[in-house]
């Protein structure tokens, strides 16, 4: 899997630099309108787009077909994309913390609670939408799977709202914001891991030509 991961790092490197640059600039911009930590909601979603570019690129360059003749299993190929997605989803908030840190040093109020809250919310949305859309990337053409990726953010927002309502039955969310959204994040992570198993099964049954 190390070789495939290295290949994706080579390919996503230039996209990643653009994403990180955008997040830093956007972070400063957003801080004039909202809480500086609000950029953490967008950061994971923005950071994972290179994964879809990489999946589409693998199909168009016939790398998929070639890789399946190498000592690599279909599970490893799919698992690597999920690993990359997870790492980029985590890297996005880290990049977005740079403007937050700079603004805090400049004297703008940045509360750790809002960072946890927005971070957990952004990561949950990214993991849920990845969990929904990644299996489709292995059974649909690249254009359709991009549409599924965009729609999946709408669906994941609905799922998060439903989870918050459900958690509110157990603990009052208004007074326990951070633990409630960390619980949402934990559920999202489980869904993401479950989705990985589904995508591997989908890809195992798929003819690759």
């Amino acid at each position, binding site marked *: 899997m*190390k*070789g*495939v991961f*290295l*290949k994706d790092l*080579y*390919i996503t490197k230039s996209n990643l630099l653009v994403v990180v640059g955008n997040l830093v600039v956007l972070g400063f911009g957003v801080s004039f309108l909202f809480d500086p930590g609000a950029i953490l909601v967008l950061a994971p979603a923005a950071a994972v787009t290179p994964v879809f570019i990489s999946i589409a*690129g*693998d199909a*168009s*360059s*016939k*790398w998929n*077909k*070639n890789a*399946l*003749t*190498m*000592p*690599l*299993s279909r599970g490893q190929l799919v698992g690597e994309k999920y690993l990359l997605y997870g790492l980029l989803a985590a890297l996005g908030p880290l990049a977005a913390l740079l403007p937050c840190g700079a603004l805090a040093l400049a004297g703008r109020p940045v509360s750790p609670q809002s960072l946890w809250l927005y971070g957990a919310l952004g990561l949950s949305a990214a993991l849920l939408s990845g969990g929904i859309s990644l299996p489709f990337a292995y059974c649909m053409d690249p254009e359709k799977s991009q549409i599924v990726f965009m729609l999946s953010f709408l669906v994941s927002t609905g799922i998060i709202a439903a989870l918050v309502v459900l958690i509110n039955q157990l603990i009052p969310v208004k007074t326990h914001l951070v633990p409630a959204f960390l619980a949402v994040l934990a559920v999202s992570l489980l869904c993401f891991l479950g989705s990985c198993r589904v995508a591997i099964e989908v890809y195992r*049954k798929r*003819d*690759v*030509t």
Partner: protein
Amino acid sequence: MNHALTVSGLTKTYPDFVLDGVSLCVPSGSIVGLIGENGAGKSTTLHAALGLIRRDAGQVFLLGRDAMDNAVREQLGVVFDGDNYPESLSPAKIGRVLKHIYRTWDDSAYSSLLRQFSLPVDKPLRQFSKGMRMKLALSAALAHHPKLLILDEATSGLDPIVRDDLLDMLLDFVQDEAHSVLVSSHITSDLEKIADYIVFLHEGRVVFSKAKDELTERYGILKCGTAQFDALEREDWIAYREMEYERQVLVPDRDRARRKYPKAMVVPATIDEIMLLYVKGETQ
């Protein structure tokens, strides 16, 4: 005789195409050419043999094993027509990637092959011509010392000089008796130069699977008029084509045809002509 690849009764059904019970084998130390017109089922056969598509029926033994596991893949080199690697990567980066995939990857062999083909190491593939990309794919396929090399239409669209370079490389490869090559192509002249056996596919079926020397040294084209044709015994010919002034008749044994029909002109048949007569010729 040991076989690097044995395919038997391979069947795959699509809505508009059926690969119908294809059987072939690649003896160790030989080059087998898989020929057939576009859409005959060559790529489908290779894809099914490599486990890229699920087969409906049939068995595949690759390097003595019936499962396409990592041990088999480690000894397999594959080159597909067109792109094989992402075009933003350079040969150097591809080398670093493959080094972490193949346990038997040989950096010095890879560098030596790149030098031999005069390929730039640090240029991205998007700046490569089709011939250069194919040379790179072959270098990458050979650099982990495979025992079986499978090439799917790897020479199509290449100029004669690049094709000749690739064919020389394949001939070098099979100098080791443990090495074998299965190459699909519709450029039969390439296979006439290098193949030991020819498998001819037509409409998803194997029409024949023969030693190349048997085809080029025994098969012939008998040229005759209608009256002469009517005098031929049915067992002496395979198919014929009506031309403007003559009939061209494919005969399986040209020496026998010369002896039996001394007034007819019998010339050697190329693989192209044999394929053409099998596909477009009349048999009744």
